[in-house]
């Protein structure tokens, strides 16, 4: 049978169209003959997500990203994507970006909501997961920590000032307290210097590509540990200074006794217990500061993350 040109051309165009559609679907990793379900989500950070990236549920590819754009109303990132229509995405599902941009393998993960929730309709909206941005948290917390340190050091100064008034000028006690104050000042300065370093380090971290955030998610635990380590250090410092407070209270008590005529100033000054207590406190404080100076990284564990870059 001889076919007319119209039929030949028409058949060719139809076959080509079918090949085109099936081919595109094949490489988009869509089911070849089933429909898809169009959905949207909004994220705070797309982390390099582009159209064509895969959408996964529990590590299984179920669709792909169609569009990524900034939503000017919220400054968030609006992501349109589609999933295999055979897979219902229930209400309460959450989306998040995972993978590492530098390797070009970013994907959109969906954490499914409870299975008995109603399905999100075609064109519906899936909540983006509110991911705790650890770097941002660290940035926020750092000045607070340093204010705390400042405050404590200020207290120490005040206490020492009181002691000096009480104790006159050339006693051993005064010398000891003076050296304690010097140590405090050194520590204060040191912390101030470090503050700048930490701030710039944090800035570096922020300045690094958005992929850092994505990467962070995998290392969230260690970063959290770093922050809590820093907290612990500060707490330790605080308790040390509490000890100093205690010492001052003891001095107060001694002075009270002195006023009440119990013992003599010479006795007080020869009271070795008191002296040793102050001395050991200052020694341990000094050790802490020395250690801090020698190995600040130990106290600022999060700095190690910076080493990555």
């Amino acid at each position: 049978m001889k076919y007319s040109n119209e039929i030949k051309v028409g058949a060719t165009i139809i076959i080509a169209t079918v090949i085109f559609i099936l081919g595109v679907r094949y490489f988009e990793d869509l089911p070849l003959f089933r429909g898809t379900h169009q959905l949207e989500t909004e994220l705070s950070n797309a982390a390099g997500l582009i159209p064509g990236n895969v959408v996964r549920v529990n590590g299984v590819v179920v669709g792909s990203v169609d569009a990524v754009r900034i939503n000017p109303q919220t400054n968030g990132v609006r992501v349109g994507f589609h999933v295999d229509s055979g897979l219902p995405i229930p209400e309460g599902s959450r989306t998040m970006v995972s993978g590492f941009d530098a390797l070009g393998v970013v994907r959109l993960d969906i954490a499914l909501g409870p299975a008995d929730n109603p399905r999100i309709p075609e064109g519906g909206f899936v909540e983006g997961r509110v991911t705790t941005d650890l770097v941002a948290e660290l940035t926020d917390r750092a000045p607070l920590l340093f204010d705390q340190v400042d405050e404590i050091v200020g207290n120490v100064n005040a206490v020492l000032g009181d002691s000096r008034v009480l104790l006159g000028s050339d006693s051993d006690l005064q010398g000891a307290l003076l050296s304690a104050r010097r140590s405090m000042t050194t520590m204060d300065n040191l912390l101030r210097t470090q503050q700048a370093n930490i701030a710039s380090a944090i800035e570096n971290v922020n300045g690094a590509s958005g992929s850092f955030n994505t990467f962070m998610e995998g290392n969230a635990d260690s970063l959290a540990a770093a922050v809590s380590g820093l907290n612990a250090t500060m707490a330790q410092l605080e308790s040390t200074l509490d000890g100093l407070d205690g010492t001052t209270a003891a001095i107060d008590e001694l002075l009270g006794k002195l006023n009440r005529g119990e013992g003599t100033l010479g006795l007080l000054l020869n009271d070795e217990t008191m002296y040793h207590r102050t001395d050991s406190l200052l020694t341990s404080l000094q050790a802490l500061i020395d250690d801090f100076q020698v190995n600040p990284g130990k106290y600022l564990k999060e700095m190690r993350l910076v080493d990555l870059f």
Partner: protein
Amino acid sequence: MPLVRTLLVEPAGSVGRYALLLWKAFATLGDMKSYRKNIFDQMVHVGLESMPIVALAAAFSGAVTTVQAAYQLVSPLIPTSIIGSIVVPSMILELGAVLTGFILAGRVGARIAAELGTMRVTEQIDALEAMGLNSVGYLIVPRVLAGVFMFPVLYVVASFVGITGGMAVGVFGGFVPLGEFVAGAREFFQPFDPVFGLIKSLVFGFTITSISCYKGYFTKGGAEGVGRATTEAAVMSCVYLLVADLFLAVTLL
């Protein structure tokens, strides 16, 4: 003065004549009756009859791309799936359209120019006009439309055959398992790529057929003129195809 003539006046004249010819052609676009039958003939000539050579060239270039990608990937750190990531986009984005374009510039472009050139020098175009027919509408519109419709079809065929050829050589040549090839292709696949390829092939189809029609329609000087028009049509089609390729890449990517 002669330099000004060669560099400015004559090109301007050519562009003007080309534009006017196309304007005249598309002014008759609504007059389907005069070219309805012709357009299917042309679609068969431009499209179906070009398919074997296009498929052949695409299959080999896909295969060669695979082999070369495999040859250059000596590092054990790079997964072999990258071969799929190279072959598929290069087929879809560039080779599928440009390779088809080059083949058709030679095959279709030369054919159109020779056909119209012969019709011009043997007064067949005058005969059409003298009958009261719009020769531009009758001869040029179906050819250009056939190019615009059939080039995307050929592009799809070329991409399909090229990718299949690349896959086949990758798998049977032992360069990359099928699964990895496909995974690599999917990892870097963007839905806009094939759309861009389609747009490209459409533009190439228009460029090649319209330039060849222009060269053929304004042929002068007998058999020699037909030969000259044919050569110029093929060469100019290739040149403007490359220009269009760059232009599209700059504007759309």
